[in-house]
């Protein structure tokens, strides 16, 4: 009994020391700083979107140029993911790249690249929607419900 208690005490001490060690070495992530960083990085992407929209506005009507901007950001996100550059920018810019449509492209492209080694049908075909499937499912589900509400209200 005494022996067991002793061992337990020893283990507790070890755990406490271990926690102290961990706290020393891992800096606490500053939430406010990260929020400011993502504010600026996300804002820059919004700015880029406005610039692109103004360029497309010369050739298209307004709604189509918004759509073109959305699509161009998807292409940019996919290309950056393919090169392997996206994760490096993501560690600097935080959420600023996840919320714009580049994040959507990144999740889709990275799940496709993950499954590449398992072949075309069972690999890419089966798991390209692994993560983005939730966006499409809930988007269509709520889209139909609120589309009905919208045409009733407006």
């Amino acid at each position, binding site marked *: 009994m005494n022996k067991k208690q002793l061992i337990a005490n020893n283990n507790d001490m070890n755990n406490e020391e271990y926690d102290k060690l961990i706290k020393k070495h891992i800096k606490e992530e500053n939430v406010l700083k990260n929020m400011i960083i993502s504010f600026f990085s996300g804002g820059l992407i919004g700015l880029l979107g406005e610039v692109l929209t103004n360029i497309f506005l010369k050739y298209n009507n307004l709604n189509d140029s918004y*759509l073109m901007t959305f699509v161009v950001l998807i292409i940019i996100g996919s290309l950056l993911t393919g090169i392997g550059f996206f994760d490096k920018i993501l560690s600097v810019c935080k959420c600023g790249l996840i919320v714009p449509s580049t994040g959507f492209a990144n999740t889709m492209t990275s799940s496709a690249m993950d499954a590449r080694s398992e072949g075309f049908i069972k690999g890419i075909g089966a798991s390209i929607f692994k993560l983005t499937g939730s966006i499409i499912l809930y988007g269509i589900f709520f889209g139909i419900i609120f589309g009905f509400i919208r045409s009733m209200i407006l």
Partner: protein
Amino acid sequence: MNYILSFLLCGFVCSISQFFLEKSKLTPGHINTFLVIIGCILSGFGLYDKLIEIFHSGATVPIMNFGHLLVVGASEGFNNYGFIGLFKGVLTNASAGISIAIVVSFIISMFFKIKN
């Protein structure tokens, strides 16, 4: 002025989602899904159109716009074709985003390999 407004809204959405990403155990996938649902709700009551009028690209760049596109498509389909139009039209506008994402990510996964 439009540039500043779009900077502000896009940055605001990003910083709010960064806050939820750090304070809760949600993954980026959760955040994206919730944003699409929020976009659907805002668009269903006609608020998102006003956001786009005021903030221009600041409202169309975030993934919330995807929900807005779905809702607008479904609503237009309902106005034109009745009940079946909801299902006919829900993907009309958003189809551009989905198809291009699928095609581009397929092509890229053929050409690039993951680096460790």
